[in-house]
């Protein structure tokens, strides 16, 4: 046993040493914009007042629970800590359901909990607000942000994350890749079982479906019902992308926009191509809110203020978020999406109307269409 395991260990150790010696910075920077898009003019900076900033510096840290992963939050952490030395941004990554459950469990037991939460799940966040867990205050940035940025009292959108369609270019050549969901639905009948999406229990998937059907109404449901029998459903994005790359699937829709950064890398682009569907590019607001039981409320407000500023949105862009305010130069920003989809087809709003009330019916109807 020693001989083989030693050989393995030696081989891997060599690879590891080579890597450690010759590696460059690991994080991929943002890709250069493919076409120059007009991003508008940046508004003047709107900082918090000096008293809040002073208290924030005394508090010394901000605890953030978010569904964004380490690579996405790294540029934000770097920029925030550079701007406010002395305040540490502590990030804990977990999915939306865990964020809210953990907050509830920690407050029920009197344990230190999050100062700021950042989540995508619309119903989860609205329930969170309804239970009185969010600090209702107005950040000075709001007066320069579009109206749809305010999602609920105390809850603001940090990013408008699009969902995209991804194709396997070896199986569906670029020219034949459908540019809208209706054509994809038609194509799906001939490639039954080779189209993939994620389950509606996934907050991003639910957000996508709810946004799409509230925009398109019954015509949208018709498309989903046409796609349903031909689509296979995965539990997460990771599986979906892996199977798509292997050729198990030829197309995938309502995929989280975070795959864009992975595909812009040349190697993956050999086989995967993403596109914003003209009639179905839901924009999911990524909500940020300061919590009522925050141990560092002023530092939290300072962080939110930074995140919503032009500087903060630039940092968020580097992490793969989709900034929407004017003056932020970003290859993945809202203007870039609008350039492809058409400004009229992009539906910007807060959460869909009555989303909490309608969640059960939407999920029921989806499950019937997809036979789950």
């Amino acid at each position, binding site marked *: *046993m020693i*001989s*083989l*395991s*030693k050989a393995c*260990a030696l081989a891997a150790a060599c*690879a*590891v040493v080579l*890597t*450690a010696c010759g*590696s460059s*910075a*690991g*994080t991929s920077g943002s890709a250069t914009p493919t076409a120059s898009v007009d991003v508008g003019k940046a508004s003047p900076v709107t900082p918090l007042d000096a008293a809040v900033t002073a208290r924030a510096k005394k508090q010394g840290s901000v605890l953030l629970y978010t569904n964004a*992963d*380490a*690579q996405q939050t*790294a540029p934000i952490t770097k920029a925030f800590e550079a701007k406010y030395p002395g305040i540490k941004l*502590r990030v*804990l*990554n*977990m*999915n939306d*359901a*865990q964020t809210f*459950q*953990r907050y*509830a*469990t920690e*407050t*029920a*037991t*009197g344990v*230190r909990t999050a100062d700021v939460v950042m989540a995508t799940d619309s119903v989860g966040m609205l329930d969170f607000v309804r239970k009185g867990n969010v600090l209702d205050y107005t950040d000075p940035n709001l007066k320069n942000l579009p109206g749809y940025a305010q999602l609920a009292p105390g809850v603001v959108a940090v990013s408008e994350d699009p969902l995209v369609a991804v194709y*396997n270019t*070896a199986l569906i050549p670029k020219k034949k890749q459908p540019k809208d969901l209706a054509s994809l639905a038609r194509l799906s009948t001939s490639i039954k079982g080779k189209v*993939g999406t994620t*389950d509606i229990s996934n907050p991003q998937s639910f957000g996508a479906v709810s946004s799409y059907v509230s925009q398109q109404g019954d015509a949208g449901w018709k498309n989903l019902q046409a796609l349903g029998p031909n689509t*296979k459903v995965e*539990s*997460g*994005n*990771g*599986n979906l*992308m*892996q*199977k798509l*790359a*292997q*050729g*198990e699937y030829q197309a995938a829709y309502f995929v989280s926009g*975070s*795959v864009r950064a992975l595909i812009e890398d040349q*190697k*993956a682009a*050999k*086989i*995967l191509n993403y596109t914003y569907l003209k009639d179905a590019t839901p924009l999911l607001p990524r909500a940020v809110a300061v919590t009522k039981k925050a141990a560092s409320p002023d530092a939290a407000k300072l962080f939110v203020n930074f995140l919503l500023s032009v500087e903060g949105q630039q940092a968020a862009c580097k992490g793969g978020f989709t900034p929407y305010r004017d003056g932020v130069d970003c290859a993945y920003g809202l203007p870039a999406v609008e350039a492809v989809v058409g400004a009229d087809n992009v539906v910007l709003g807060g959460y869909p109307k009555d989303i909490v009330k309608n969640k059960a019916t939407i999920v029921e109807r989806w499950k019937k269409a997809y*036979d*789950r």
Partner: protein
Amino acid sequence: MKHRRRLLSTNASHYLLWALALLVIVGPLAPVAAASLWSTPLYDSGGHFTWDNFHALFTDGGWWTAVGNSILFAALNTAASIVVGVACAVFLTRTDIPGRRILTTLLLLPIALPGLVLIVGWAAMWTPAGFASSWLETNTFLSMPVDLYSIPGMAMVGMTVASPTVFLLCRGTMLSIDPALEDAARTLGAGPLRSLLSVSLPLLRPAITNAALLVFALSMEVLGLPLILGYSSKINLISTYLYDHWTNDAQQGLVSAGAVFLLVAVAGLLVLRNRLVGDTARFTTTTGKPTGVRVLKLGWVRWLVSGGLALFLTVSVVVPLAGVVLAAFTSILSPFISPWSVLTLDNFSAVFDNALYTSSIVNSLLIAGVGGALTTLVIAVLSVIAHRSRFRFRGSLQQGMLWPRMMPALVTGMAFFWSFALLDKSGAIRSSLWGIGIAFAVRSLALGYSAFYPALAAIGADLDHAARTSGASWWTAMRTVVFRLVAPAMGASFVLLFVAMLNDAEPAVFLVTDKTPVLGLTMLQLAATSIGGSVAALGVIQMVITLVVLGAGRALLGVRPRA
């Protein structure tokens, strides 16, 4: 003879240890039982006692479908891994087939890999669109007969990890069987194979039933496999059913009711095991006389057996492992792109450049190494109380060591959070690696205990009695006689615990902080957002570390997973 006053009588020490064990094991179960009988989640105020959760669970058709699927999956997995594991235990330890050491190493490799990464390897190679399947179909007349996205397919993948576990649990007994017993059969005219099969194999009964119980129980609660392979085929197992309801509807009561159901089920299985094994004194093989290992000569058949095993291990271990390595060293793994054109070390540099990943590795190593060793000792002590003493409540210890594993991991994590929050107001344990370590350790007690049970059953009672008649106290007899004899079982237990605690993820969801990340959770987060390369890279690093640690343990302590 000088009569030394002991600080604590043996019986009192048993009670003390029993109470501590119960605190740590049953303590977390209490919030779960409470949650199952309460109408609102524990963190919400109000609510009342109710049977509604159980009612909702038992009237849900989806639940019973999931139970049926789970039983089928568990049965297939157990049957296959017992057959393979025992056959390997017999052939690789007691016969002279060529290449035994390499085959043993190959068989044991999957244990060193985290489950998620092993599935990545299988998915890359043997799924209908995988590398190996496509290669087979285009270049040969063969094709992969089993669809990985079905229950038999999942059982096949599960078997790759379960059969080395069975092998480890049976090998100790296999090696300790007194050749005199087989010689007795030989003097009556039985051939070497017949004596092996009719004398030694039945002596494995405690080990086999114990291993079957463990594999069956683990199959009922495994989550990663059905979530990745079964989801798109709409195969719901108990674990995915409970996971779904926990994360998506926050139905803590319903899920806790499901957890209670699983606990009752495993309690029943344990009673069944004890019934099937019966009086363990019949299976005593270690009796104080020196024994050697008699190797059975198979003649020319040995080449066939060796070839068969090699082929089997190539398909089930080498090919998926190659898939993992390929995925780790390429930026995207796909049959449509030649892997040589996308070779890269970026996945590894992404791991090493990120402080989160490197500190996850360090934290998990600490938890698994230190925690694994401490837990092995604790299990050793509890097992001897449970099986070698006259302690009144020793049966409850046997049950207690199995129960925590059966609960869904998320539920265990929540339960521990509540227990820590209520018992440790300062939060010192809860937010440190100790808290996570305790949660992981309790969850993996079943694995360590399974390694001890057959070893203890094999040691003749006359050995500790000999020590007692010489005046040793019960503890001295255990320490000087029994523990020495179960050293191989301690090694096997440490191996299983180390690997399990290195990879565990969900129990830490409520306990982990930004300062104490653990590898399992980091890997899950990576899996959710990347295209597989970084997960594979992390898995390769973890496998190398595991092999190095186990190899170092063997060199330093002489404690080996085999006798």
